[in-house]
């Protein structure tokens, strides 16, 4: 049962990721990417990480995709006039795809697992309560990175506003 769900979800994830890249129309790419993100949220649900799945849907399928879609519509890019790259570039892309896949798989498969035998301890480690304790624990939590993340978001917001403000045209 679980294995079937996993294979269906993986097929959706990989197929929509491929379609995102190969579709000529950027709007279609964005829509395929939304489906890809939803299937990844399904993977998170398989791991019983509900909070992460919900946050993933809100942040990726919600915020980021709306941002991308609005940019596409703002630039009026919903036409398929993109020229393909030259043959040599495509060959290099395929070669690097295969090489990176080979290196990553070799590194992951050949590395020694820390846990020899996987077992379930039955301990609660991924409910919202535990996640909040790990995130905001006073002594060895992630309190300072959490504050820095908020500063990063503030700075990126200011930066985005400043960058997209109307300014004097620079001749290129």
């Amino acid at each position: 049962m679980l294995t079937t769900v996993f294979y269906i979800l993986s097929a959706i994830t990989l197929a929509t990721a491929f379609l995102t890249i190969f579709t000529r129309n950027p709007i279609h790419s964005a829509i395929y990417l939304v489906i890809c993100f939803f299937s990844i949220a399904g993977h998170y649900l398989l791991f019983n990480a509900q909070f992460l799945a919900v946050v993933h849907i809100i942040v990726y399928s919600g915020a980021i995709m709306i941002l991308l879609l609005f940019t596409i519509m703002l630039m009026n890019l919903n036409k398929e006039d993109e020229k393909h790259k030259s043959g040599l570039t495509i060959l290099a892309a395929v070669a690097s795809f295969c090489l990176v896949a080979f290196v990553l798989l070799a590194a992951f498969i050949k590395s020694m697992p820390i846990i020899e035998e996987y077992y379930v301890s039955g301990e609660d480690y991924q409910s919202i309560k535990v996640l909040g304790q790990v995130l905001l624990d006073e002594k060895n939590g992630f309190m300072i990175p959490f504050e820095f993340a908020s500063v990063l978001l503030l700075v990126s917001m200011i930066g985005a506003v400043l960058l997209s403000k109307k300014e004097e045209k620079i001749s290129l």
Partner: protein
Amino acid sequence: MQNVLQEIGINNYIYLSTILFCIGIFGVLFRRNAIVMFMSIEIMLNAVNLLLVVFSTYHQDAAGQVFVFFSMAVAAAEVAVGLAILVGIYRNIHSIDIDKLKNLKG
């Protein structure tokens, strides 16, 4: 709740996220449209996030999932700034074809 990793095995998840990451790399190298390149970068980030969650479940440790939250925050910031830069580029050269951005080549 049945356990996922016992049923499916961690190797399948490693294959899945490796292939997803490589699709992202291929997209960055293959496409000329800068927005689709951004989408490929998002696919790569998601592949890494997925593997982090898998290993967090494997070690039964919540720190991996907390790390994914930070990576999501950074991804959101990155997309906001990157799209603002793209809008600036589009205003100046009326295209977001990255092959046209070679003024530094001389």
